C-alpha cells in the first residue's frame, strides 16, 4: 500500500468482470437511495472526494485523500458492510490503483478499452451518469471533477480518432446493419421471422428498433408466434408453417431460426419468389442449427443469405480490427493522462505559493502599520501609499525567485512519471513552506 502523504492523492478500489464473477460483483452494487449513506460513511474517515462507478461489468470507487492508508481502510470497511461479506472473501478479487495508475485506468474504462465488448459506447454514458450522482451529492471536488472531465474528453478522442468503436460485434446488430446496407429505408421493408428461436427473436427486436415495416411470424405453434409478437411489442401477422411459401413472397428480410431437420427454404422456392418480386432484393438471415435455408439459395441473383457462421466470422473480423486500434487508443490515453497529471502536479505547489505570499504580505503590512504609528506619522496619505507600493514591489521581487523555482521544478517533473519525479514538486513545496514557517 502507498505511504501516507501530505498532499491529496488519487485512489481507486474496484472489481470488474476480469477479476470477479457476477455473483460477487452484484453484492457491491448500490441503489441510488443507498448512495448518500455510502458517501457519508467513506467521507467520514479520510476521503475528501469520491465517485462510485457501477456498471454490469464493474464496481469502482475513485477517491481523493490526504491519508491514503486511512482512506483505503475506510472504503474497504464500508464495502464489507455493503456486501455483507468478510474482507477475506473479496479482497483477492479487488484491485487497488493509485496516482497515475488510477488515472490511466479511468481513462481506459471511459474509452471502453477495459470493457467486456471492446469499443462499446454504453460505458461512456454509464461513467457520466455515475459521476453525475457524485456531483449532485456534492462529493466530487476540484480533482475528481477535472479527472472525470478529462476522461470524457479522452473517450471522445478515442472514439473519433481511432476505429475502436466502428464495426459492430454483436450478431443481431451485424444482421441489422447488413440489412441497412441492402435496403434504403427499413420502415418500408417487411420482415418475416421463421421459427421461435431465441436468437431470431433478438434479431427481430433489433429490427423493430429501426422501425421495420410489417412483421410476419411463421411457426408451427401459433401460440408461440403470438407470444413473440407480444414480446417485440408489435403487431404481427401470425402464419402457420405450411403457408411459408406465400408468406415469404412478400418478405424483404427473412430471419430463419426454426428447429427443423431439413431445409425449409429451398432454391426452387426462392427462385419462384424472386421471380415474382422482380428487381427487389431479399435478405435471408439463417441462424438456425441445423440450417433452415439451403445454401444454394445464396447463389441466386438479388438474394443475400447469411448463416450464423457468416455473421460470426464478420464479428471476429470486426473484433480483430478493433484490437488493432488498441495501441493507438492507448497512446491517446497516455498523452491525455500526462496532460491531466501536469495539471495535477501543479496543484501541489499552489498552496505553498499562496502560503508564502500570505506570510510575506502579513509581515509587510504589519511592519508598515507599526512604522506608520511610530516613525512615519508625518507622512501624508499619498506619501504613505507610495511607501506601501514600494514595499509591495520589494516583496514581489523577493518572492519571484522561489516561486519561479517551484514552477520550474514542476515543469521538470513533467514527462517523468516515476514516483520521485511526481512527488518532487510536493517535496520542494514542503521545504519552502517549512523555510518560511514561523
Amino acid at each position, binding site marked *: 500500500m502507498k505511504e501516507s502523504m501530505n498532499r491529496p492523492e488519487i485512489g481507486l478500489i474496484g472489481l470488474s468482470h476480469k477479476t470477479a464473477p457476477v455473483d460477487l460483483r452484484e453484492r457491491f452494487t448500490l441503489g441510488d437511495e443507498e448512495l448518500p449513506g455510502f458517501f457519508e460513511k467513506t467521507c467520514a474517515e479520510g476521503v475528501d472526494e469520491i465517485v462510485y462507478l457501477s456498471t454490469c461489468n464493474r464496481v469502482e470507487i475513485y477517491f481523493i485523500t490526504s491519508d491514503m492508508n486511512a482512506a483505503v481502510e475506510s472504503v474497504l470497511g464500508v464495502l464489507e458492510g455493503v456486501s455483507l461479506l468478510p474482507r477475506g472473501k473479496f479482497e483477492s478479487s479487488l484491485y487497488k490503483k493509485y496516482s497515475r495508475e488510477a488515472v490511466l485506468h479511468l481513462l481506459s474504462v471511459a474509452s471502453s478499452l477495459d470493457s467486456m465488448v471492446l469499443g462499446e459506447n454504453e460505458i461512456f454514458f454509464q461513467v457520466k451518469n455515475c459521476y453525475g450522482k457524485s456531483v449532485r451529492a456534492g462529493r466530487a471536488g476540484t480533482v475528481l471533477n477535472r479527472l472525470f472531465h478529462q476522461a470524457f474528453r479522452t473517450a471522445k478522442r478515442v472514439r473519433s480518432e481511432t476505429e475502436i468503436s466502428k*464495426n459492430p460485434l454483436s450478431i443481431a446488430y451485424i444482421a441489422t446493419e447488413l440489412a441497412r*446496407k*441492402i*435496403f434504403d429505408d427499413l420502415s418500408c421493408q417487411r420482415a418475416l421471422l421463421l421459427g421461435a428461436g431465441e436468437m431470431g427473436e433478438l434479431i427481430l427486436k433489433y429490427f423493430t428498433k429501426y422501425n421495420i415495416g410489417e412483421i410476419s411470424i411463421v411457426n408451427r405453434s401459433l401460440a408461440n408466434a403470438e407470444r413473440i409478437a407480444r414480446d417485440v411489442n408489435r403487431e404481427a401477422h401470425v402464419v402457420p408453417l405450411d403457408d411459408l411459401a406465400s408468406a415469404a413472397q412478400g418478405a424483404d428480410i427473412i430471419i430463419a431460426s426454426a428447429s427443423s431437420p431439413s431445409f425449409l427454404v429451398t432454391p426452387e422456392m426462392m427462385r419462384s419468389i424472386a421471380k415474382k418480386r422482380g428487381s*427487389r432484393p431479399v435478405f435471408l438471415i439463417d441462424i438456425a442449427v441445423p440450417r433452415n435455408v439451403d445454401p444454394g439459395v445464396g447463389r441466386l441473383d438479388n438474394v*443475400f443469405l447469411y448463416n450464423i457462421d*457468416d455473421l460470426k466470422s*464478420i464479428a471476429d*473480423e*470486426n473484433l480483430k480490427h478493433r484490437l488493432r486500434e488498441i495501441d493507438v487508443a492507448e497512446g491517446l490515453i497516455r498523452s491525455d493522462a500526462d496532460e491531466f497529471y501536469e495539471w495535477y502536479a501543479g496543484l501541489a505547489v499552489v498552496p505553498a505559493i499562496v502560503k508564502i505570499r500570505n506570510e510575506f504580505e502579513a509581515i509587510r503590512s504589519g511592519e508598515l502599520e507599526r512604522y506608520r504609528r511610530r516613525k512615519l506619522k508625518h507622512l501624508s496619505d499619498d506619501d504613505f501609499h507610495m511607501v506601501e507600493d514600494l514595499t509591495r514591489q520589494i516583496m514581489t521581487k523577493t518572492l519571484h525567485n522561489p516561486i519561479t523555482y517551484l514552477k520550474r521544478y514542476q515543469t521538470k517533473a513533467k514527462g517523468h512519471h516515476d514516483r520521485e519525479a511526481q512527488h518532487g514538486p510536493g517535496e520542494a513545496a514542503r521545504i519552502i513552506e517549512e523555510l518560511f514557517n514561523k
Partner: protein
Amino acid sequence: MFDVLFITTLVLFVVTSVLCIYSLHTDDDRHKNRARLLLIAAIATFVALGAVRFYLTTDDGVVRGAFTIWGYFYLLALALVVLLVYLYFSRWRAQWWSFTTLAVPFITLVLIISTPFLDSARRITVETGHWLLPLHIVIAILGEIFFFLSFIGSVLYLVMEWQLKKKASMRFIFRLPTLESIEKFNRWAIARAFLLLSFGLVSGAFVAYGVFATMFQGSPKEIILYASWTVMLSLFWLRHGGRLDPHRASQLNVLLFVVLMFIFMFANIYITMGFHGFK
C-alpha cells in the same frame, strides 16, 4: 500560360484521383477532406483552363471549341464536372462521394487522353452553322455523361453485390451507399441518358438532313450508334419494368457504356470517315 495551367490541372487531378481512391480504401475522414479540398482546387484550375483556351488564346467559345479534338474532350470533362456539382446539391448527396471517387479518375483519364491533341488543328468538318448543331453536341455530350453516371452506378452495384455475397468484411460495405439506393440512382441516370441520347440522335439526323439532304449516310459509326441506341432502349425497358434483375442490368450497362465510349471518343478521332470525324 495555357500549357502551365494544363499541367497544373492535370497534376491536381492525378493527385486528387489517387487520394480519392486511397480515401475509399482507408475510410479515413482526413484523407477524404484533403481529397475534397484538392478536388475544389482541381475544378477551379480546370474552369480557368477552359476560359484561357476558349476566350483568351482563341475566340472559339465553349460550343465551337468542341469542334476541335481537345475542345471536345474538355467539354466532355466539363459536363461531368457540372453534373457532379449538380449531384452534390441533389437528392443523391448521400451517395455523392462514392460516385465522385470513381468520376474523378475518369476526368483525369479524359485529360490524359487529350494531351496529344493540345495543339491539334483537326476539326469536325461540318461547320455549316446549322442552328441545331451546337444543341446536338451539347445534348449528346450530356447524354454520354448521364450514361457515364449509370456506368459508375452499375460498377458500384456490382462491387457492393460482390462484397455482400463474399461476406468477408463489413468495413468496405460501410463505405458504399446502400444497394437499393445505387439501383435507384442507376435507373434515374439511365432514364436521363436514354432520353438525352435519343434527342441527340434525332437532332443529329435533322442536322445531317439539313446539311447533306440525307438522314443516314451508312457510315460504320452511324450503324453502331443506331444499334447501341436500340440496345439501350431495350435496357431501359427491361430495367424500368423490373423485367431484368439489377445484376444482369448492371453488367449490360457496363458493357454498353464501354461500346458507346469507344464510338464517341475513339472512333471520332481514329476513324475519320463520315461527318463525325476530326479531320
